[in-house]
């Protein structure tokens, strides 16, 4: 399975990406989670600590001023050397976080990540791997194609206008690129909520994830949802979403 999760801020992208990664790893798949969001998120949902800008050491600046991966470093070595291994054996590669001390992310790290994300889809060593991406909020990274490896873009929307309009924009961009994309309704409290998401976005809902107080609690505590409530409704629903995505191809 190769997917990237997108949507408005706060809809549950990291929760879905992190939990899906853990579940697929538990089922025996080799999983690489790719976090391109400059804000914290996926590491917490996976339950792993990761350096802010791991690829800073893997890039060089060319004469034209552009950063690229150092000679001899491709997706395989980047993942071997700079990804961290989390619970259930999930590997996590981060782009570049805005440092907690302020200022800009370490220069070059994000460009290095971008290069990995471009090349990893075609890398024979990753054939058979499950790749799960967590994109930054909004349509930017979909428009600029930060998830070339993804066979399907999973677009999340909760029953609010703002998240629905965002989902529309992302779905439109994905289709203009001829990339497969599905709409997933999140924080759903009733069947009417799921229908509402479909109406607001203007297309059928592929899957539904329930509102779950356990997730809010996990967020407050900074623990991975799958560790906080392993048998919870959302974890169960993400598991089913994973099955459906896996059989989509």
């Amino acid at each position: 399975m190769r997917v990237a999760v997108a949507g408005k801020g706060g809809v549950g992208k990291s929760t879905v990406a992190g939990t899906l990664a853990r579940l697929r790893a538990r089922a025996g798949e080799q999983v690489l989670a790719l976090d391109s969001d400059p804000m914290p998120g996926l590491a917490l949902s996976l339950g792993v600590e990761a350096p802010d800008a791991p690829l800073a050491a893997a890039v060089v600046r060319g004469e034209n001023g552009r950063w690229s991966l150092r000679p001899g470093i491709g997706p395989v070595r980047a993942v071997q050397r700079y990804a961290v291994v989390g619970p259930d054996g999930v590997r996590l590669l981060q782009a570049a976080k805005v440092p907690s001390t302020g200022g800009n992310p370490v220069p070059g790290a994000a460009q290095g990540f971008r290069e990995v994300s471009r090349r990893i889809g075609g890398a024979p060593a990753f054939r058979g791997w499950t790749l799960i991406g967590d994109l930054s909020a909004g349509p930017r990274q979909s428009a600029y194609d930060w998830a070339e490896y993804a066979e399907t873009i999973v677009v999340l929307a909760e029953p609010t206008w703002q998240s629905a309009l965002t989902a529309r924009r992302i779905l439109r961009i994905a289709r203009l690129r001829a990339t497969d994309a599905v709409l997933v309704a999140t924080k759903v409290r009733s069947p009417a909520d799921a229908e509402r998401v479909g109406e607001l976005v203007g297309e059928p809902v592929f899957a539904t994830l329930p509102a779950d107080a356990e997730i809010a609690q996990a967020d407050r505590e900074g623990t991975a949802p799958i560790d906080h409530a392993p048998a919870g409704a959302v974890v169960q629903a993400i598991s089913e979403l994973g099955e459906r995505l896996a059989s989509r191809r």
Partner: protein
Amino acid sequence: MKIAVAGKGGVGKTTLAGTLARAFARDGRDVLALDADTNPMLGVSLGVGAERTDLLVAVRQALDDGEVEHQTTGEGLVDVFGTDAPDGVRLVVCTRIERPNPG
């Protein structure tokens, strides 16, 4: 007074910015609301309407598409690209991402 609202997605930036703008306008101030998000939603919380917010023309795209002549002053930009929101708030959307970038 010039303020900007920031924070992680979903924490309430747009709600706070839009509601502050309306409240200040009701107090009699001239208010300019600038939506600088590449996923602009400020119109929703200002009360412009969700569907209409989705259709608002962003300054950057209109200029790129050559639909309008460039304005050389701030007043001109607000005048040509602004939208009237309730309570007399003037809303300007700076840019938006709505299609794949080939580059």
